[in-house]
């Protein structure tokens, strides 16, 4: 007989490990499902057009989150507008221009350090560097988030720059193009997917950020235009959630905001996957 049945001990080991794996994976899955369902069930009934389209009024005791939605939009916009050129430029320097290996290592180490710093420290540094000079305002919050999201944009751009074939650059150089022309016309169009992925990830991070914004951007609820909005203090959705839940005990509103944030997180994850598969397909053609 060639195949001997496994010994009892080995069978028990296999069963134990398989059981542990399935239990843990099941637990993780159940946890996600629970969070999703719980937040939706508690949040969606509290959503109403009035909540979404008005600002809080002490006179009528009504709560509206329109200002928080607008503030979130402003912060996302301002952060992306500033961080994109910086991050993409840094990535281009690292992959296209830098010839000093040591300098590259230092820059990459700095980026890794930045991505490891917790947001509460960004908040404090944001107070020191920005809020102490320009006052507590959305712009100070956005500038703090710029530092925070720099490594994300840098990394995703760098990854996609590495996939632009070397022969493209050589071809362009061979036709007599200068370095800048090659970067502008050959390299940059090739890394659009990385930039888009970076933007999506950054938007997700900005939407979820609270500790870095609480003290730099404040927590006012006023409806403003983009420019005045950026110059005055304001709460984003996450900060508003925190204030309503922790300071005011308005759990209905807090869950309504949580449900909105949950849907946005889902959409952002979906968008990131879609962009990746879409560009992967195009590349393989």
């Amino acid at each position, binding site marked *: 007989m060639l195949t001997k049945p496994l010994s009892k001990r080995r069978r028990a080991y*296999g069963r134990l490990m398989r059981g542990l794996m399935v239990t843990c994976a099941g*637990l993780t899955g159940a*946890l996600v499902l629970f969070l999703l369902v719980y937040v939706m069930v508690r949040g969606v009934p509290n959503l109403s057009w009035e909540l979404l389209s008005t600002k809080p009024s002490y006179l009528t005791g009504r709560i509206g989150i329109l200002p928080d939605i607008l503030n979130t939009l402003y912060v996302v916009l301002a952060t992306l507008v500033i961080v994109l*050129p910086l991050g993409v430029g840094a990535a*281009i320097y690292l992959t296209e221009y830098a010839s000093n290996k040591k300098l590259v290592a230092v820059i990459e180490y700095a980026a*890794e350090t930045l991505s*490891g710093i917790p947001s509460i420290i960004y908040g*404090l540094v944001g107070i020191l560097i920005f809020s102490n000079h320009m006052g507590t305002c959305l712009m100070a919050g956005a500038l703090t988030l710029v530092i925070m999201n720099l490594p994300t944009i840098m990394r995703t751009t760098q990854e996609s720059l590495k996939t632009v074939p070397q022969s493209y650059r050589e071809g362009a150089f061979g036709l007599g193009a200068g370095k800048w022309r090659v970067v502008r016309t050959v390299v940059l169009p090739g890394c659009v997917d990385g930039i888009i992925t970076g933007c999506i990830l950054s938007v997700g991070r900005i*939407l979820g950020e609270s500790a870095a914004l609480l003290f730099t951007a404040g927590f006012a609820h006023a409806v403003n235009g983009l420019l005045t909005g950026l110059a005055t203090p304001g709460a984003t959705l996450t900060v508003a959630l925190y204030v309503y839940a*922790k300071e005011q005990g308005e759990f209905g509103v807090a869950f309504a905001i949580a449900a909105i944030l949950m849907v946005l997180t889902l959409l952002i994850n979906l968008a990131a996957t879609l962009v990746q598969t879409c560009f992967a397909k195009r590349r393989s053609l």
Partner: protein
Amino acid sequence: MERAIHGVFLLLGLITVGCVLLITVYLVISGIPAIRKIGVGRFLFGTVWASTAAEPQYGILPFILTSVYGTAGAIVIGVPIGFFTAVYLAKAASPRVRQVMEGAVSLLSGIPSVVYGLVGMLVLVPGIRRLFGVPDGASLLAAIIVLAVMILPSIIKVSMTALEAVPREYEDASLALGATPVETWFRVSVPAARSGIAAAVVLGVGRAIGEAMAVMMVAGNAPNMPGLFQSVRFLTTAVASEMSYSSGLQQQALFSIALVLFLFIMLINATLNFFLKRNKEG
């Protein structure tokens, strides 16, 4: 022209280095004065934090210990669950299950920390109060559970990447020698990926020790020495809870706490880099 553009890109490249230096310098400059005034020993090892008392005392040992215990607790709960889930998804799961679970894990990592805090406040805190019969469920235990959930996605993702990078030949050789698939995963693949898995754990430590908002919502925020059912304050929440109304020496002391937290994080980053480098070298 070319030279000027090269210079511009060099500057952009150096921005991250500048930011790190700026953060370090600002934290050190604003963190040192209070430590000097209070005294290193009394600041780091003082057991009483009473910043608003008539005779204020600034001892942050309770915060340091709470952060260490809280992180350790989150690791003890989160790492085994994350580890087994990662092995299952990387090796055993069918493509369909894997795809769904990967989406679920991404969602878990994308959920804002205040949402975790909110759910913790309304599910975990009352649950602990009822289950263990303590007067207030806002405690170290609640924070540990929330942190354990929050570090799960990092642990699962990084461990999975490491497990998937294990060369196919190792596993084939083990299977050919008569090991069962389960034995192969746990006795060949996991040891081969151990640096990556260690990096996942260290990353989890970094996440847990740096989390502020979710912890602030469930831990109770009283500056007690840590106990499982005590209302406690972490290093992060010590900074966050008093920042809005502090001034003078009190505010300076908060910056000193941030400096201590920053030093912890730098230490963790260095460890993480060590493991990541070793993982790359194989």
